[in-house]
């Protein structure tokens, strides 16, 4: 898989002297084509700064950002708009649609900025919006749309110039859970069906389900990631490398202690109660736990790895 975006040793300092704040400290990250990378971390950890630097909106104090072999962090201000226009698609938490433009115009505008004829830009916009289920909203102003619709318009706007990377900042934050899942599915299909790299900054744990990789940013630094699992007995999150584990039916299960493992194995090995329909009290929970404890969910074998910063 070809590398598309590489961040090397990026440091970003705001302010100077005694009031200087290091938002990022030597961050390194590579995003491959078609990969979904989720950047998580506490508030103020530098996630948005990292996203801004990756998207050529902000210059790093030190370090480089390389996009398809081109060091974009060293480009002049004159060259940056073209990079933003053609290489990146931005999705914002607040949607950031232009309030005076209709849905169609919001999307077509980006095409026009890239040099498309107005008719061609509008055609592309209509095609994308139709694909995203907004065909009957083309002439609406953003204020008339629901949050989910606004975010879909923002996604269409991000895609209209066929960028190689989508940068999304808390794309599900202002949406209810159903719409949030819908947006997540959409982002995943953008990555997997259109081959775009997607970098998402979010606090939303649900996005882990669609991410190929989760990185943890804290105090301006990326932490080593450890794969996490859930103890199927007590439900506790455990580090896979340090946990007691047991292979069962071709699956490796992880436990917080030998006691939990024993309890789990005892349950499984115990003879089935007599009577065909007597329920097993833990069976459902255990099934769920087993699913959680899997390295990856059945339908996202290489995705959704549960990872957590090593402390």
């Amino acid at each position, binding site marked *: 898989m070809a590398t598309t975006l590489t961040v090397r040793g990026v440091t970003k300092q705001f302010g100077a002297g005694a009031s200087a704040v290091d938002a990022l400290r030597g961050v390194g990250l590579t995003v491959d084509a078609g990969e979904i990378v989720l950047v998580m971390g506490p508030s103020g950890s530098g996630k948005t700064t990292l996203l801004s630097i990756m998207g050529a*909106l902000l210059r790093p104090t030190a370090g480089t950002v390389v996009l398809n072999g081109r060091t974009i962090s060293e480009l002049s201000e004159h060259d940056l*708009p073209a990079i*933003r226009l053609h290489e990146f698609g931005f999705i914002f938490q607040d949607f950031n649609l232009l309030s*005076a*433009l209709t849905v169609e115009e919001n999307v077509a*505008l980006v095409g026009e900025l890239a040099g498309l004829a107005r008719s061609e830009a509008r055609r592309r916009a209509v095609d994308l919006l139709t694909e995203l289920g907004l065909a009957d909203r083309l002439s609406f102003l953003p204020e008339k749309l629901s949050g989910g619709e606004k975010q879909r318009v923002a996604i269409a706007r991000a895609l209209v110039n066929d960028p190689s990377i989508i940068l999304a*900042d808390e794309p599900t934050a202002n949406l209810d859970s159903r719409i949030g899942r819908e947006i997540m599915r959409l982002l995943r299909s953008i990555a997997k069906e259109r081959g775009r790299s997607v970098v998402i900054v979010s606090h939303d744990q649900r996005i882990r389900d669609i991410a190929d990789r989760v990185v943890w940013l804290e105090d301006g630094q990326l932490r080593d990631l450890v794969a996490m699992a859930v103890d199927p007995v007590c439900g506790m999150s455990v580090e896979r490398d340090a946990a007691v584990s047991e292979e069962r039916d071709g699956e490796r299960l992880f436990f917080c202690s030998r006691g939990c493992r024993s309890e789990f194995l005892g349950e499984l090995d115990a003879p089935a109660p007599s009577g065909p329909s007597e329920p097993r009290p833990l069976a459902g929970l255990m099934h769920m736990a087993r699913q959680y404890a899997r390295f990856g969910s059945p339908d996202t074998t290489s995705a959704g790895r549960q990872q957590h910063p090593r402390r």
Partner: protein
Amino acid sequence: MTAAFLARRRLFRNRGRLLTSIGGVALALSLTLALDAIYAGVANGLTAYIDHAGADVWVSQAGVRNLHMVASWMPASVTAQVQAVEGVRDATPILYTTDTIASGGERGVAYVVGVPHEAPVGGPWQTSAGASDVLPGSVIVDAAFARRAGASVGDSVTVLGREMRVAGLSEGTASLVNTVAFVPFGDFRSARGGAPVVSFVLVRLEPGVDAAVAAAAIERAVPGVTAQTTAGFANQERSLVMDMSADVITIMNGVGFFVALAVVALTVYISTLSNRREFGVLKAIGARDRLLYGSVLAQALISVAIGTLLALAFTALLAALVPRTGIALAPALTGAAVLKVAGFGVVVALIAGLLPIRQVARIDPASTFRRGATL
């Protein structure tokens, strides 16, 4: 094109701001345009007699180049000398002074013109009642003055210090400043002591004779006179009026300019400030600064263009309505005034559009990622 599109959408999205902006411009430029139109109307009124008297060339005492507030006295023999110049078809002497006419309780300033009986030129060019020629002891007064005075044909008015009977009512002979009253040449002369003098000689030329050439020939042939074409004479008159009012016009132009500038600059600036986030978004998605500057400038230009058109429409309406009110004034919207206001508009728009550019330039595209940031 995109800059203008964005500007138009931004402008028309906020109706209140749009109305404030174009209303302010329209009002401010209307001040300038209306004042220009009024002065032009006054000037046109003052030159009405020159324009319609029927002469091709006006001959006056040497150095006298206009009618308003001057005295021109030449020997009566000048008329024959002018008549003798080649190309002159006829030469009509008139006497002229500025006087007060009164009727009942109404008094008004008038250009009083003494016209020979059955003169081919110099008399009233349009009458609404009575005679168009003046006989001894009679006067033709302006119809508007007669209406105000409640006078009609046959009534008496006081002109040149004597009572005269109204023989007719003329139209188009009133301005905001005065009216024109036509009296018999002989009556005028006797009222002024009977001296054999004339004020002006009105010359008609043979067909095909150039007025400027004839005027020059008259000046060469007749000593002590100034000869001007009618157009030149009228221009001198207008220039005098405009010069007299130049300070007022300049002040009002300045007021109009600065009010328009303040209104447009303020509304464009406020609009730019309130749209900073969207400018940031545009920068973030790849719009170049020049597009944003262009859209701010276009917003100012569109506001000013609409405001200017409204000001023109308002002034045109004023010019159409004022004469119907009975005021002796026909405001005139001149090409020069329109050009001046258009120029004003462009300068106002450029300044108003350039002022917020620093704000736009300082917008950080990365700020768009900050939740709820006002940038």
